[in-house]
């Protein structure tokens, strides 16, 4: 069964500092990979996704993620964090083939990001 691990439950960074959120997955083949952000009281918002091709994926709000097959990782990065980035971040995977004509996401437990002014 596929699984997603986000090793860090809570990360605190200073505003302007760089950020890396870790995500590791377990799956027989390379799945589709996603990062979502959930701000307090808000729904989940897709930051970026990886299907194939270039392993460095650019997303919204200045985020990027790099797929590393050898490490089964899809870490999220941002060079300079803003106070508004404080939120909870979820990594997710989906099977690369929708055998039943549908797909579903498996989410990690999330990493809460706090930003110090």
């Amino acid at each position, binding site marked *: 069964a596929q699984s997603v691990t986000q090793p860090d439950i809570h990360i605190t960074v200073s505003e302007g500092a760089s950020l890396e959120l870790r995500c590791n997955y377990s799956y027989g083949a390379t799945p589709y990979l996603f990062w979502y952000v959930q701000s307090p009281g808000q729904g989940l918002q897709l930051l970026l996704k990886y299907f194939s091709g270039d392993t460095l994926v650019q997303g919204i709000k200045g985020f990027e993620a790099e797929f590393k097959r050898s490490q089964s990782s899809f870490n999220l990065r941002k060079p300079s964090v803003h106070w508004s980035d404080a939120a909870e971040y979820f990594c997710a995977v989906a099977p690369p083939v929708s055998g039943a*004509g549908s797909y579903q996401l498996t*989410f990690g437990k999330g990493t809460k990001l706090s930003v110090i002014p």
Partner: protein
Amino acid sequence: DTAVSQTPKYLVTQMGNDKSIKCEQNLGHDTMYWYKQDSKKFLKIMFSYNNKELIINETVPNRFSPKSPDKAHLNLHINSLELGDSAVYFCASSQDRARPGEKLFFGSGTQLSVL
């Protein structure tokens, strides 16, 4: 304009009651989903409907029954609520089920507390 809206945002009720959570999307999407986020923050899919047809039904107690009157609505009805049902429930939608990795749009969640 809210893309995916679910009501209520908060729901507090006693064990044994029956409650419903409503979800509506105005994006013209064909597929809608219900996810449950438990206390350990895992998001697990419960149901998925495509054009009012049930296409995903994970191992969920039959006390949970989704209802899709039309493709813009997917309501979740829960009978005989139990303490373990306390969680945040997210509704979502996507344009198409047949394209893996299709972008999902999520509602803001309904926090259900069963006392």
